[in-house]
């Protein structure tokens, strides 16, 4: 009998470059982009945020607060017991405005709003104010591991009090300044590539994305449960294929999961032939017999893109279906019942993570 604690996702709210904010649809309508930058498809904010609050919020704060509100509604929770957010780069456009103002005005007569909006933990604070949540409030900013660290924190919190409801989420924007720096660092593709052709590409670099995803996580299931998170592990800069494969097989062994029990694995391949090599090696070795899906052609690459992958995994388990747009041709998908999903993500070939989901 498996005695390890499970962490239940009891609600989700997600805004991304796809129309993901309506849960009755699971990638039925796909948004194609011709440029290398994917930005969010946004719902009507006024349905979720009062006009008084809206007026001071930047685009990304509106997206984050709306995603969090959607998640609370989906989980039928009004006030969470704690709020944990993750962001690789925070709110860069607001930070840029604040810094520009500092320069232009010689560090005098600065307005407070840009400063408030530019801080990493602004979103967690906003959600707390909006929900009147006085509980635990934390923000992780550890770049490619930001969301994984937030999720890890939730798991630790719930191991102490399993009945709590924690709102955990991510937010990262496709900021212009980040794209400019990313191009110099060769993070993005030099050539223009339509997002739906990303995995046909045989070049380095990827496409820029953004999004915000929130999950209500509790130690107990509810009527609105999507799936359970069984375990999470981070692997930093594995040196070679053997080390990475061993890390994965050890992770599965600790969780008493056989390879044959994994119904589908969600690959965090980014379309960068250099950065994806460990994932390509996995699909030819350890996970050769396991159907694979990919998602970064739909949301682009960003520090917390794994949260989009978590939504994909949770949706597959809840809806028991896999949209064709996610499928990689081999091996064939002949699944009658989907009970176990493994997410294997990579960010810049540095930050690797495994997330094991159960129905």
């Amino acid at each position, binding site marked *: 009998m498996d005695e390890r604690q499970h962490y239940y996702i009891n609600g989700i709210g997600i805004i991304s470059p796809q129309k993901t904010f309506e849960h009755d649809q699971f990638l039925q309508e796909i948004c194609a982009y011709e440029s290398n930058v994917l930005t969010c498809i946004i719902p009507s904010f006024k349905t979720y945020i009062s*006009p*008084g609050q*809206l*007026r*001071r919020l930047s685009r990304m704060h509106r997206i984050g607060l709306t995603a969090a509100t959607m998640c609370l509604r989906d989980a039928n929770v009004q006030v969470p017991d704690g709020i944990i957010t993750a962001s690789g780069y925070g709110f860069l456009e607001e930070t840029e405005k604040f810094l520009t103002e500092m320069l232009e005005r010689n560090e005098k*007569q*600065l*307005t*407070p*709003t840009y400063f*408030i909006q530019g801080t990493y933990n602004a979103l967690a604070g906003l959600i707390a104010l909006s929900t009147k949540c006085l509980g635990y409030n934390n923000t992780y900013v550890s770049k490619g591991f930001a969301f994984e660290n937030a999720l890890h924190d939730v798991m630790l919190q719930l191991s102490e009090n399993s009945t709590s409801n924690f709102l955990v989420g991510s937010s990262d924007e496709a900021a212009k300044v980040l794209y400019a720096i990313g191009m110099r660092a060769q993070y993005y593709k030099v050539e223009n590539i339509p997002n739906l052709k990303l995995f046909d590409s045989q070049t380095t670099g990827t496409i820029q994305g953004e999004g915000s995803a929130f999950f209500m996580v509790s130690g107990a299931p509810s009527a609105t449960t999507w799936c359970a998170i069984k375990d999470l592990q981070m692997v930093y800069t594995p040196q070679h294929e053997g080390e990475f494969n061993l890390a994965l097989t050890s992770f599965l062994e600790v969780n008493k999961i056989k390879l044959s029990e994994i119904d589908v694995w969600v690959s965090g391949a980014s379309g960068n032939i250099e950065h994806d090599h460990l994932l390509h090696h996995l699909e030819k070795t350890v996970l050769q017999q396991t159907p694979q899906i990919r998602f970064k052609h739909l949301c682009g690459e960003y520090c917390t893109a794994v949260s989009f992958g978590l939504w994909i995994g949770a949706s597959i388990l809840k809806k028991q279906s896999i949209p064709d747009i996610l499928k990689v041709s081999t091996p064939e998908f002949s699944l009658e019942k989907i009970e176990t999903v493994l997410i294997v993500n990579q960010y810049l070939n540095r930050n690797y993570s495994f997330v094991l989901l159960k129905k």
Partner: protein
Amino acid sequence: MQQSIEELTAELREQLIEQLNLEDIIPESFDENTPLFGEGLGLDSIDSLELVVLLDRNYGIKLKDPKEGRAVFYSIRSMAEYIHNNRAQA
């Protein structure tokens, strides 16, 4: 030539709406005497900081005594009167 209180009132109204992003929440009954805080326009403490900066940037007036703020920022009219009187003394 010094602006009249009426001219300042009209100018402040435009500045407030732009600086505080009030386009969508201005009530129809909003006029120069509507209280800016509380049950009037419902501005908050961050807005009061924005107003302090607005006075400094646009009119060169530094509000040094925080206690003064309550009366100065009561309404657009009170702000206009304060600007008119303090700029006249400068």
